[in-house]
């Protein structure tokens, strides 16, 4: 499990979707959660950077856990997710500042995401508000964007949640570039006008 955290954490940093100490990840095993340590560097995770705590209730380890432990716990309690990746991708953040939902125009994003809802909160990091709001949206979509902050992606495996994160940032980059062009974007996807209703 540590190897998974290490390789995906490093990839997140190298992809430029987190800062040196940003983002967090977790997996669920039975009634336990394994989450990255608060303030850990995801590109340099060691054994002591993975914190084990309860799914149903807190224990002393929560003092070490990521700031977002409450959000992760709420998501696990409300969904079938077994892994969560939370990152701070720049293009996704830019898109979320101007949109209530993000609909991909690229092929990969269209296949995998169709549409990503954007939600807003007054306190965006580790807040009860986010913990109450996100699980309901993640019951509908495997990736939800928190405006100005970053996406929460869920999966059965850490790699799945990471893939969605990676595809989403690329989608947002393509969108941002496309929207900056003066030429009209030519539609190539049958039925794409319905993606917003996905």
């Amino acid at each position, binding site marked *: *499990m540590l190897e998974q955290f290490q390789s995906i954490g490093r990839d997140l940093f190298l992809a430029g979707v987190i800062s040196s100490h940003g983002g967090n990840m977790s*997996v*669920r*095993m*039975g*009634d336990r959660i394994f989450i990255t340590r608060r303030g850990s560097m995801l590109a340099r995770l060691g054994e002591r950077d993975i914190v084990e705590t309860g799914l149903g209730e807190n224990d002393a380890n929560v003092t070490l856990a990521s700031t977002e432990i409450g959000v992760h716990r709420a998501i696990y309690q*409300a*969904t*079938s997710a*077994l892994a969560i990746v939370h990152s701070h991708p720049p293009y996704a953040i830019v898109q979320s500042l101007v949109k209530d939902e993000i609909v991909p125009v690229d092929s990969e994003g269209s*296949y995998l995401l*169709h549409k990503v809802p954007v939600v807003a909160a007054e306190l965006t990091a580790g807040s009860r508000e986010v913990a109450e709001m996100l699980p309901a949206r*993640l*019951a*509908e*979509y*495997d990736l939800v964007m928190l405006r100005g902050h970053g996406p929460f992606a869920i*999966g*059965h*495996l850490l*790699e*799945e949640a990471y*893939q969605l994160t990676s595809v989403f940032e690329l989608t947002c980059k393509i969108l941002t570039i496309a929207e900056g062009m003066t030429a009209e974007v030519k539609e190539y996807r*049958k*039925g794409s006008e*319905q993606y917003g*209703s*996905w």
Partner: protein
Amino acid sequence: MTSRASVLPPLRGLRLDLSAQTQSQEELPAAVAHEVLGGRGLGAWLLLRERVFAADALGPENSLVFAPGPLTGTGAPASGRYSVSTRSPLTGTLFDGNSGGAWGSALRRLGYDYLVVAGACAARSYVFVGSQGVEWRPAGELWGADVPASLARLRDLHPRCEAAVIGPAGERGVLFASIVNNRGRSLGRGGLGAVMGAKNLKALVLAGDGGHRPPVADAERLKFVVYEAEKLLKSNPITSQALPEFGTAVLVNVLNQAGAFPTRNFRASQFEGAEAISGEALRKGYVQRRSACRGCGIGCARRTTAGGESGDGPEYESIWALGADCGVADLTAIVQAGYACNRAGMDTITMGATIACAMELTEEGLLAGGPRFGDARAVVEMTQATAAGEGLGEELGQGSARLAARYGRHELSMSVKGLELPAYDPRGMKGQGLAYATSSRGGCHLRANMLGPEILGVPKMIDRFATLGKAGLLINMQNLNAVLDSLSLCKFTGFAMKEDYYARLLSAVWGEPMEPQELLRIGERIWNLERLFNLAAGFGRADDTLPARLLHEPVAAGPARGQVVDLPPMLDEYYVSRGWDDAGVPAAAKLAALGLADAISVADLDMGRGAKAGVPAAGAA
């Protein structure tokens, strides 16, 4: 149970009382569809409510529930399916088979969401259901006819009908007799055909077009989601190339190379003759054409010829059971043995696995004059003898667990809860061991198959030899498959599609919001209903296990060399993740959360502890 506001119509059912030769129409509130969808879920719901766990599986008090799902016949991909649920005479568990073809669509076109068969006919009969009502007919010359002849005769008698029949095996009480429909598809496992046979019921025949269209609330929306789903199916190499090109037999070489291809009754996990019985060999020498169930674009089925005969199949599991598991590399003999099973209406997996068990008993000196590993002719002859109920075939017809027990070596039956394991050696894919042990219908790959993540990398590749950390993934898979069997959709769509697609298909058909997570919750509810039934039928933690060979005998050679399944810690993780106690009983809080607090009485649960009455026992040696 849960309830929610709905515009859904009630579920409309037809109940046939074979004992009284009467029929009645009934309705269930739409809330039941919200709770368990249809198909397998509805079968579990009805049979638990009617306390079939206390029934003699071969007695008139057992019932059969035939149920398509809400997506059957709607145009959703690979949706021409239906389930049949009952208490299995082979395992004693709740059991359902799921089949393609067009029988399920025909039932919906008659305006029914399910059909319950209760009681037993006094004389050999078949039943015809048309838009004008139910006709009770004597079976006459149909009784004794094999499956193809029965289907042909019924089609003469009722042009354009859809029929589900049993063959001589079901009539004779072979405990793994199947039900077959006239699109060549079987409800193969668990002895559903034996239950029909015990009821003196040869066939259930439906008028081909009852005039009702399965309701679709938002046809435009459905069209869009189907289009999106088919894009995935057409671009995925498993659903667009491997299965259409080679059929399921494509897995022979894949599993053999992985060292997870059980050989000679699981004494090895690689077969030296795999190439000769592979999907590639089948395509080259035997396949006439491919075929597909109604509404399916994958087309995994095969029409073949061998030794002057022609017929359907064999599928991967049949090739394995009648081939590698018996040490046989003669593909012609395997195909012919498969035809014999199809004609008689028998499950090829249990047939082959039981012959393999007999072969090991013979080699151990316990079964004088029995078949030996590698004897292709013996596989064909034993299959025919079982169908005819002749000689050793009479004993083989009771399945491997009773056969092995009869000769004092129960551990040589490679089965879980009495159902023979299929073609994946869990020592080479440990998660599959947990899947077998916890399957609600016994040794089965269709409740959940870790082939995806452990071998094919779907959705992602995981370490197949790892023990812990797989319970959650398996549970999600079990829950999702319960949903697919209840919608009813083919599981092969799952190689390309995820739960969000299924949720959106159902949402379009029902005209109501349906979240993917809610769908998985429904799957979890169905799984727990099945668990409650099985607990009341006498199954518990001690039954959630594997044959001793897989727990204690390391694989001798190949990629899985040295591996056994370390089951106890996996089972502990599984129970915790399920919200069950150490004995495998769902906790009260879990049942309450799923709306199942009143699904079964404490007395019924207590009744099941340690007792498995109501199924045929092994005969004395």
